[in-house]
């Protein structure tokens, strides 16, 4: 990826929490480049640090967590912004205007005692925007997420369904015309149909408003329908990153391959479902060598002592494994498609258009 087209650049990011039993490091030396106008999916199991990584884009790690390292935002025009060095008032301006975030608690993301209209209005007001023009935009946005503006704006959050709230929140997140939208499991509490319709909606919104989307989830099938590139997180760092096709058809990290193998399939009985043996590491522990070595079937002496750097698999594909080229033999994926289809994404989007 070329540097000129990078919109968010993360270097040596660490997120730490001081706890009684020691320092908990929930993101460790992470590097990541988000390209302008792409959809980047971040996937990983619970507690792998993906939400913390994404929160750092807005320097919004919950207290008492501390983000250190560099997060640089490159606006369309103008100087790069070092997000972690912004003062509180600068940060208040930066948030939602440049990078907006929709996160997993969508069900309770609205102040229960004020109308949806108030949420739009106060956001515009506190960012010194023109309110009538902003409210017109709000109506437009609500329409583009298939909501009736007249009805929604005068409603209170408790009067809306989960899917409506989620869509209203997405509309709210775009009201200040941000360039980047971070979505932290935005579909977690929704039923399957609503999940699919939100994904379709996001794709349309991205095209319409020139957005860069960062989509965090642990739902791999969902991600393959939306993402241009996928980053896989394991144990507080990114272990593999590549285009969606790279990861689906040529996964080169044993963890990614194991993860693909565990994807549930309705045709397989529960007792035959695959699992990854072992458990994830404690964020307080220091892990010598490769973080995945205790669970990896390929692990050898080198893996136990040295931390593998990101190795280039192909132009668009990197993997943090010394033996990335042997991973496909060592970890097989039972339901894997044989060959990469000719036309990129379409094979993964079975029924994704509903």
């Amino acid at each position, binding site marked *: 990826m070329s540097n000129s087209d990078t919109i968010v650049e993360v270097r040596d990011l660490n997120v730490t929490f001081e706890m009684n039993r020691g320092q908990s490091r929930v993101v460790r030396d992470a590097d990541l480049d988000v390209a302008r106008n792409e959809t980047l999916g971040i996937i990983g199991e619970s507690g792998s640090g993906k939400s913390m990584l994404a929160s750092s884009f*807005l320097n*919004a790690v*919950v207290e008492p967590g501390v983000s250190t390292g560099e997060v640089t935002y490159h606006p369309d025009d103008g100087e790069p912004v070092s997000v972690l060095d912004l003062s509180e008032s600068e*940060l*208040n*301006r*930066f*948030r*939602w*205007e440049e990078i*907006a*975030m929709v*996160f997993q*608690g*969508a*069900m*309770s*993301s*609205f*102040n*229960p*005692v*004020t*109308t949806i209209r108030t949420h739009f209005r*106060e*956001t515009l007001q*506190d*960012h010194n925007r023109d309110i009538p023009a902003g409210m017109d935009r709000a109506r437009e946005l609500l329409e583009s997420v298939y909501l009736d503006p007249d009805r929604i704006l005068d409603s*209170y959050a*408790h009067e809306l369904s989960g899917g409506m709230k989620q869509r209203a*929140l997405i509309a*709210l997140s775009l009201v200040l015309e941000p360039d980047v939208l971070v979505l932290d499991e935005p579909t977690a509490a929704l039923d399957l149909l609503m999940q699919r319709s939100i994904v379709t909606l996001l794709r349309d919104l991205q095209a319409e408003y020139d957005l860069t989307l960062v989509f965090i989830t642990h739902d791999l099938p969902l991600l393959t329908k939306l993402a241009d590139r996928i980053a896989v997180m394991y144990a507080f760092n990114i272990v593999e990153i590549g285009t969606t096709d790279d990861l689906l058809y040529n996964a080169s990290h044993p963890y990614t391959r194991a993860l693909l193998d565990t994807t549930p399939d309705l045709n397989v009985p529960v007792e035959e479902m695959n699992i990854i043996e072992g458990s994830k590491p404690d964020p307080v522990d220091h892990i010598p060598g490769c973080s995945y070595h205790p669970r990896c079937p390929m692990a050898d002496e080198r893996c136990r002592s040295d931390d593998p750097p990101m190795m280039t698999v192909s132009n668009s594909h990197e993997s943090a494994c010394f033996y990335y080229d042997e991973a496909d033999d060592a970890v097989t994926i039972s339901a894997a498609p044989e060959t990469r289809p000719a036309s990129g994404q379409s094979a993964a989007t079975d029924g994704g258009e509903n």
Partner: protein
Amino acid sequence: MQGNYLAKRIGQALLTFFATVTLTFVLYQMMPGGPEQALRNQILSQQMGSSNTINPEQIEQLVENYTNLESDAPIYVQYYQYMSSVFLEFDLGESLYSEDTVTSLLAERLPWSMLISVYAMVIGYSVSIVLGAVMAFKEKSRFDSVSSVVVIGLNSTPYYVAGILFIFFFSIRNNVFPTGGRYGLGIEPGFNPAFMQSIALHAALPILSMSVLGLGTALTMRGNSVRVLGEDYLRVAELRGLRNSRIATQYVGRNAILPMYTQFMIGIAGVLSSSVIVEEIFSYPGVGLLVYDAIQVRNYPVLMGSLIVFTLVTIVAILIADLTYGFIDPRISSGGNNE
């Protein structure tokens, strides 16, 4: 729906009021030494000292004049007569020991009680809301733990103990505030600065000691605020880059105070009933002192009358709280339709 609910709720309030008055009337009647007997005893004991005797008929006549009751009538007739005079003629009877009607006694005293009760509530609740909010914002800090201990201590201290201590330190030791009364002697009542100042000085200590009553609310406010601070919508508000002042008032403040609204309204009743003791301590001639004196001499018509006023204020406050809750919290639709 709306009208239905209103009518139903007002009906309930009237029924509660009626039941309370009835219950009190019955209780007073069942107490050993009811109003008539107390009055008879009073007259008889006055007789003892003097030589002239009054015959029993005259006593009965006197009793009847004073209490609006035919003392020999069966209880249901007495009840009917008292209730009809209260509800139909708005006549609460006369004090047993003076020529004043209960209504005029109450009307003269009530504004003074209102003065100290309203200020005590406003000050007590405002201080505790601000204190509770600050404690929540600085959760687990030294300020938080020290204030928690102080508030729990103050809340466990009965307000009358606080009142006595205030008198001791501020009036007797330091002479900053007067020990009692409504306003200084020899000051011309009216709309002049000296009179106003005197009223304020005299009301200060009773208000202060009654404010202590509301301080427990600080802990409730702290708890509510801590809960709201952990809510998702607060995090989203921060992510949206909203001004801190807006987050503090519209998000934390509003959502934390809401559950306490009804509690405030019920608190009015607590303040009124505590005025009985506070006004006695500060010899502040309000309704509370009237009640206290009436209990001492078993002045039943005055007791009944004051109780009716207290009940009325409480019921109206709760009624207002119920009817307005829907406006301040949109999640509560005004009843009726979800039954």
